[in-house]
């Protein structure tokens, strides 16, 4: 019994980061373009951001903090929780040091 519990704990611990990254890369790209890019584009109101703007580790750290606008507001204010996960999956998967770096339309 104790062994089983231990095994389950290990399993839960191992699964935790997977759950955090459980978003959909493809959905994330769409949400990133439709939401983030309305401000974070060249010539728009905020600094241009693409997946290449950060490394995978930097994106993970950004989403761990989940703060927008220089830490002033939570990301949850702009996106639903599952959308945050989707965007995270997209940005991490295509970060500057990822196997498939992407600019998302320049």
């Amino acid at each position, binding site marked *: 019994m104790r062994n089983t519990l231990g095994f389950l704990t290990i399993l839960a611990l191992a699964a935790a980061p997977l759950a955090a990254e459980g978003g*959909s890369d493809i959905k994330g790209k769409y*949400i990133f373009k439709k939401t983030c890019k309305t401000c974070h584009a060249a010539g728009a109101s905020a600094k241009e951001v693409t997946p290449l703007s950060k490394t995978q580790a930097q994106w993970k750290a950004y989403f761990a903090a989940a703060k927008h606008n220089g830490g002033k507001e939570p990301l949850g204010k702009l996106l639903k929780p599952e959308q945050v996960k989707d965007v995270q999956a997209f940005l991490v998967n295509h970060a500057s040091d990822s196997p498939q770096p992407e600019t998302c339309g320049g």
Partner: protein
Amino acid sequence: MSALLPFPSRQLRQALTGLIVCSLLPLMAQQTAPAGHGSYTKLRAERGQSATADHSKFKVLQGPFKDGDGSAVTRACLSCHTKAAAQVMATKHWNWRPSDKKLEGYGKSTHLVNNFCISTIGGNQEACARCHAGYGMKDSGFDYTKAENVDCLVCHDTTGDYEKIKGGYPNPAVPLADIAQKVGRPGNQNCGVCHFFGGGADATKHGDLDDTILKAPRAVDVHLSKQGAGMACTDCHLSQAHEIAGPGYIEAADRREQPRFPGEPMSRMSCAACHTASPHASFVLNRHYRKVACQTCHIPAFARGGLASNLSWTWSTAGKLKEGRPYEERDAQGLETYNTIHGDMVWAKDVKPEYVWYDGHMAFTRLTDTISPARPVVLNPLQGSYADPEAKIWPFKRHDGDQPFDPVLNRFIAPWTAGPKGSGAYWGDYDWDRAIRLGMEKAGLPWSGKYDFVKTQMWWPITHMVAPKTQALACTECHSRQGRLDRVAGFYLPGRDRGAGVDFLGWSAVLLTFCAVAVHGAFRFLSSRS
């Protein structure tokens, strides 16, 4: 003497002032003229009001639809529009090939080769299907007869929120029910999602079609600009039963369309269909219509919207890695000069077109055709000459490049380009041997096992982004030495060409005239004194 001087000099001053004012008048008139009539914007608004159905009221469109399940939406559409899918399935947008039997092997679903991503049939269908008006094209086994595979929304979305992914499916994040409730007639954005992005990115392939058209000022496109006529693509590319008028590998160079009876359908895909064959006030300009396409003078340059178009794509230099990783290089303007997945590239804005005699026919090159690799292979040789009554001088974007071919069979090759690392696709593993072997297997075509690169060239007709008439070419742009038509052969062009004999006779006549006038004047002067 001094008393006499002011009189003629004042007259001279007045004459000079008059001359300057007269020459400036048309310029001032043009500056104060209204920017554009915008009549089509009004027309469209009126047409919108005449709709009799509000799609948001239909039960069948309330959803929710499963994420990315475009076919469910199509089934809902077809429950009322019962014949729509059958109509779409007869079109080029669906079949990716012309219906004309004489054009066997043309079309991207068959053996056509281009200068950009080369070919779809070497296993690239799934990636290319992002621009197919259907769902589920993954390989050559796509079912072209299944009505629920028709993608209604890509052309009828009015929200701008619709987006397709691999295989032609909607992105699972797309709000399908919302889009389905707001469907309407196709706008420029619907056409643009594919036709602006041909060749893989904005402005890449065409040179006269890119995303800037949607917000273009009148100076960039007098027709499509909202400040200009405010037209839609579909005002010229009229459709009948979902088949939209378009070149389909044959573009009439001189389509003098006029309806023969009221209500006769026609495409309006020619300037003359609206502007007539003699639109200028000047007889001399109208006479040009016989031999010069309107586009030649009225589109002084392509890629005028601010985005650069691709002029060259060198596949032979693709595949270089930096520290084992693919990379890209950009020039000072931010234009991509090298990318591991493409090779070397050349881009440019505001490019002067090249001019060629063109009668509306191109002979395309297919994967099954034998080529002669000694010279650059022109993938779509243009037909026409001065002697050809159908031919006119047309502006073109010339696109250079190179691509792999089979040096034993002397044929082009369909490599598998789009695929993940480890799959064998070129953009995954950068191994031509594997990508070609797999691609040719998927295409069901023979390959000798060898490959080399051959220089290629493609010609893209320039017909959109028409400039305001003040920017139309001046006479001397062509009628001069080293002018725009310097290399257009087969005829005598005044101002460009000369014959020593004719020149001698002409100048002799001028000289003799002067002599005669001088002698005549001298006699009159002398005789008046006596």
